[in-house]
């Protein structure tokens, strides 16, 4: 039987009317669960089409290299191979998925042109009668490279004299003319000067693969009307439709996306990785075409959560008040932007964490390296920043011999506080969450901390 945690109505009681909660706190069955347990839910690959053709990709063997020559003649002779697709077949080869929200420049090719920026980058697509023939064809593409020096670390990429890997001329995304997304509030140096203690620590994380049980894929079916019908497991149907149309250089109305059934996504299925090539292949062969990642591709070339490196320097008073926080944050976007410029902005928007600190300084860098492009994953930007911030909180509490919950309560933001982004905090509940969590695990808080409330303005009590 399902465990349903009853809603605790004691908190913020006066902010709610009786009967406000019609669904929260009640058990509601998922609309798709019956299909899941009977095996009738239709995932994109559960459709079969006569004459279905398959795409496989020839991928870069190097982290960073110039492409000197591409020879597809052997691939074309593999029995069953219908068509070989290179960048010349892609009407508008350069894109960045976030252009739909105004991000530029287009920094990624659908298929590589004169260089590759990461190991596993798509160079040539092979369309064949069978999956086996497509695999064989892709293996027989010959590419000659001149290897170039690769940068595989965010700080190395920004160091003086590092090889510039991006055509735009910098190894970082440019935010309105700046090298980073910046946050400036108060005077952080003055804060450090007045602090009783300074804590300066470094945090880093590795890339994390979503590993959905269903790999990324789609089937594109040419319609008699000339439109292309895309059965996809994308998490972002309209993003996919619009970006695909821009890459194909066709009106949006030429495409139709059928999706919404996703065998695990977690942010890993919001890039537009398979639909454009499947559409091109379908249009060139006039056959339904399937492009689905193998498990190995899903693990190796689908965008993971970005690796991050974060330096946090805090100035703290003897009583546990944080008076200054400086953060230098580096997101490893890998070779191309994908969703990382946005993720980095989110990281910056999240600083300095849910605490009220009078002096804050942050530079959040979206850095390009010759690693697999990273992108969205469950709270990207925020999740790793939180790992660093909360590790920092625990370490400071330990260093000062403070209770880690009391230390957080002392600094927790409250309604009415001005945040570092010049927004007034509202709807805060960190204090109540900590109080409740402490009670649930039997962690005794002194009365002055139990009496705190998010809605009591700072200075009036405790």
């Amino acid at each position: 039987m399902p465990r349903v945690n009853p809603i605790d109505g004691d908190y913020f009681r006066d902010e709610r009317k009786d009967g406000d909660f019609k669904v929260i706190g009640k058990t509601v069955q998922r609309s798709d669960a019956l299909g899941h347990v009977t095996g009738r839910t239709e995932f994109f690959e559960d459709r079969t089409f006569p004459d279905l053709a398959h795409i496989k990709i020839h991928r870069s063997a190097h982290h960073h290299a110039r492409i000197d020559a591409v020879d597809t003649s052997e691939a074309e002779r593999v029995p069953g191979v219908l068509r070989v697709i290179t960048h010349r077949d892609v009407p508008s080869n350069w894109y960045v998925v976030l252009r739909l929200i105004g991000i530029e420049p287009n920094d990624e090719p659908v298929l590589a042109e004169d260089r590759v920026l990461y190991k596993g980058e798509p160079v040539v697509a092979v369309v064949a009668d069978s999956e086996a023939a497509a695999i064989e064809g892709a293996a027989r593409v010959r590419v000659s490279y001149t290897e170039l020096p690769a940068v595989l670390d965010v700080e190395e990429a920004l160091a003086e004299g590092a090889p510039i890997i991006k055509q735009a001329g910098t190894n970082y995304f440019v935010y309105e003319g700046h090298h980073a997304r910046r946050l400036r509030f108060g005077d952080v140096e003055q804060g450090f000067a007045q602090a009783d203690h300074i804590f300066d620590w470094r945090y880093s994380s590795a890339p994390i693969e979503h590993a959905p049980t269903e790999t990324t894929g789609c089937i594109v079916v040419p319609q008699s009307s000339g439109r292309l019908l895309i059965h996809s497991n994308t998490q972002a149907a309209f993003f996919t439709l619009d970006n695909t149309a821009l890459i194909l250089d066709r009106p949006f109305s030429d495409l139709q996306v059928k999706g919404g059934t996703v065998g695990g996504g977690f942010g890993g299925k919001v890039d537009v990785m398979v639909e454009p090539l499947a559409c091109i292949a379908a249009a060139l062969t006039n056959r339904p075409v399937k492009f689905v990642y193998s498990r190995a591709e899903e693990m190796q070339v689908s965008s993971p959560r970005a690796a991050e490196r974060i330096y946090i320097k805090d100035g703290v008073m003897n009583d546990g008040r944080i008076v200054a926080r400086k953060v230098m944050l580096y997101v490893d976007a890998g070779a191309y932007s994908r969703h990382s410029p946005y993720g980095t902005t989110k990281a910056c928007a999240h600083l300095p964490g849910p605490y009220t600190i009078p002096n804050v300084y942050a530079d959040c860098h979206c850095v390009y390296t010759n690693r697999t492009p990273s992108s969205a994953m469950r709270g990207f930007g925020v999740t790793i920043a939180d790992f660093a911030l909360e590790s920092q909180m625990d370490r400071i509490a330990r260093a000062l011999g403070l209770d880690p919950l009391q230390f957080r309560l002392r600094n927790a933001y409250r309604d009415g506080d001005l945040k570092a982004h010049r927004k007034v905090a509202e709807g805060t509940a960190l204090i109540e969450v900590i109080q409740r969590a402490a009670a649930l695990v039997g962690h005794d808080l002194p009365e002055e901390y139990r009496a705190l409330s998010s809605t009591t303005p700072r200075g009036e009590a405790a």
Partner: protein
Amino acid sequence: MKIVNLKVNGVGKTFIARPETTLLLALREQLGLTGAKRGCAQGACGSCTVLLDGDPVVSCLIPAMTVDGGDVATVEGLADGPVLSDVQQAFLDGFATQCGFCTPGMIMSAEALLDRNPSPTRDEVNEAISGNVCRCTGYEPIVSAILDAAERRRAGANL
């Protein structure tokens, strides 16, 4: 190529298998039974689990040519019209599915377990689904649902 005769969910079926045809692809693409899923095609995820002569197998690793004369059970055969099997019902009631991609394989592994062990311990349930990867639920509700199904089945048997 070989003509293969087998029983699927109690009904006789015939299809032509090539050397590279797996049982999974035969079920999905030739017999129209798409409940078993392809998550890895290399025996690592369990999403293609079906029962072959009562045993749970990863159908992506079984050459279809070798199952001539066999008896295969898939998720599609569990429900009796609108009436779900006790395992299916327990998964539904226990919120043991999220994206649903692992669910058919999980359910078949659970059916196989309860067929040979009507009163499994939590550890035995863990063991029985140790070849089935779920990336959504964190397994807890799945294990609870299987234990719940065992209880339902025992209660039903006592009626």
